[in-house]
């Protein structure tokens, strides 16, 4: 194993084991050895992929995703002075939001973390987001994917409202829309005119990866 590979292994393991201090040191060592910042980010993403696989295998759960995400964020902060330009997003850009009138964000946040890990550039608009703001963000970011979440039955009507607004703006054929949330059923999703329905965040990521490959 070469010196760089040893450092990379340490970076990956630090993400998987939520070891912030070791990660910071390994990143600085790699930078001082002349490794490019983008390469270090890719290695951190590999660590997050391992975390994602452990999540998929029910070995890790949402708290572990949060800790791994926090660890990675701290790593990025250490690396920031050495970074140039924008990084990530090789699978495309996704805008993600919980719809207007709804403030539930756990499922949405997991989806954001997993999509980022998978290689999408993610624009997370947060919760209780109006249809107008969502469509504006899709337009401004040239997004290929729109992920919408709703938990309350009273807010499900936002899905067709957003789809209709996308149509009105002439953007519907440029974007794939996936929806999720506990009260969303496949039956209902079909009627709203979206492209995909996901029971879980992980299933949603697989749908989006399929779309990215098909482009």
């Amino acid at each position, binding site marked *: 194993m070469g010196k760089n590979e040893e450092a990379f292994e340490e970076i990956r393991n630090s993400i998987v084991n*939520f070891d912030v201090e070791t990660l910071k040191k390994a990143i600085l060592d790699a930078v001082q050895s002349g490794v490019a910042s983008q390469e270090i980010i890719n290695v951190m993403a590999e660590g997050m992929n391992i975390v994602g696989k452990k999540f998929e295998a*029910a070995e890790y*759960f*949402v*708290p*572990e995703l*949060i*800790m791994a995400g*926090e660890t990675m964020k701290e790593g990025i902060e250490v690396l920031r002075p050495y970074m140039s330009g924008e990084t990530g997003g090789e699978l495309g850009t996704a805008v993600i939001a919980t719809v207007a*009138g709804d*403030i539930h964000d*756990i*499922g949405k*946040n*997991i989806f954001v973390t997993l999509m980022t890990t998978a290689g999408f550039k993610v624009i997370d608009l947060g919760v209780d987001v*109006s249809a107008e*703001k969502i469509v504006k963000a899709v337009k401004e970011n040239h997004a290929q994917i729109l992920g919408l979440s709703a938990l*309350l*039955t*009273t807010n499900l009507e936002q899905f067709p409202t957003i789809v209709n607004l996308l149509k009105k703006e002439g953007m519907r054929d440029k974007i794939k829309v996936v929806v999720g949330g*506990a*009260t969303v*059923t*496949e*039956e*209902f999703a079909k*009627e709203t005119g979206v492209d995909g329905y996901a*029971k879980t965040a992980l299933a949603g990521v697989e749908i989006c990866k399929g779309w990215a490959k098909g482009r």
Partner: protein
Amino acid sequence: MTSTYDRMMAVYQGRDGEGVVFQPRIKHWFEVNSATGTLPERYQGMYLDEIYRDLDVTPREVWVPGVRGSAGYLALRIVEGDDVEVWVRQYRGSSSEGEPQDYIVTEYRTPKGTIGQLERLTEHGVSVYNVEYFLKDLKDIEVYKYILQERTYQWDQRRYEWGKERYGDTVPLRVNLQRSPLMWLFVGMMGFQRTVTMLWRHPKEMEELLMLHENEFYKMLDVCRGKPIVELHFGDNMHQDMCSPPFFKKYMIPFYKRVIPKVHEMGMYATAHWDGFVKQLLPLVKETGLDGLECVTPLPQGDVTLEEMKEGMKGMLLRDGIPAVMMCPWTNLKNLEDHVRKLLKMFYPRLILGISDLTPANADIERIKFVNGIVEEFNESL
């Protein structure tokens, strides 16, 4: 025919042959539609109790603060310490975009410092959610520890008498306790993501705080001792994406194991509110000592089948069981009928039927009558 009270007691005690009670939560449906003027014509001007009577189902929201026609049966009262001042103000303020929103600021002012939370009222003002939580850092925790140390609980005899007169012959008395310590932090005091990161970065301080929270339960139980309470209920809002199986094993099971024997010693039953995804937690529930679960939500809304619920709960009592989305007019009525019949067949006699988690504001209220018809038919067949 046995009374509703006896039927419910039979469920607690695990006795056979008394018939199923249908006790849906309709308060949220009632409050939103009252606020928006969209109550069906038949129910306009009625109190919640009168609607329950008209629907011919058992009233449910009798243990909550009395809002818009709900009597309330809340018999435990929090009393803060002498030098803890609670300051509350509601205001209407601008958000980053759109219409101004209604907010509630609450501050606890103590000799150790002040902690505060910001809540926003939901669209029709019938509920609130946290924009900012009380506990943001270790300094806040120190203030909060002082608040808890000074806090006591009182039995509200007047409130109890009022509820007893109104509901005492119909439904056994249940008292709602707080959420279990970890869920109390996740949902009420600190927020999910911050709690997770604080547990990770400051485990010692957080575990001390959890123990202090647990001590609150012993105070509450002392006040409940000797009172005519049948059920003590942990309002946990359990969801595996927050309380993962490792968290459940580390924090929840030991807590329940310490507290529930004390509930049983007092001759009461212990139940908890599990309204999220719980597939990974159900195999662990029997280790808790809980007598029953409320609001477990099957597919297509939750993540469990009725068979998985039955297997995990192994003879525990179930309150509710109909996914709320099945009460909405766009879902298939035959699916609702099939689900209710299967639920009755599988869970009777350990079942108090209801909606998991509550009747949505845009539900078709006639579906309550529809379900009640199935229940009556089932009870006649016994």
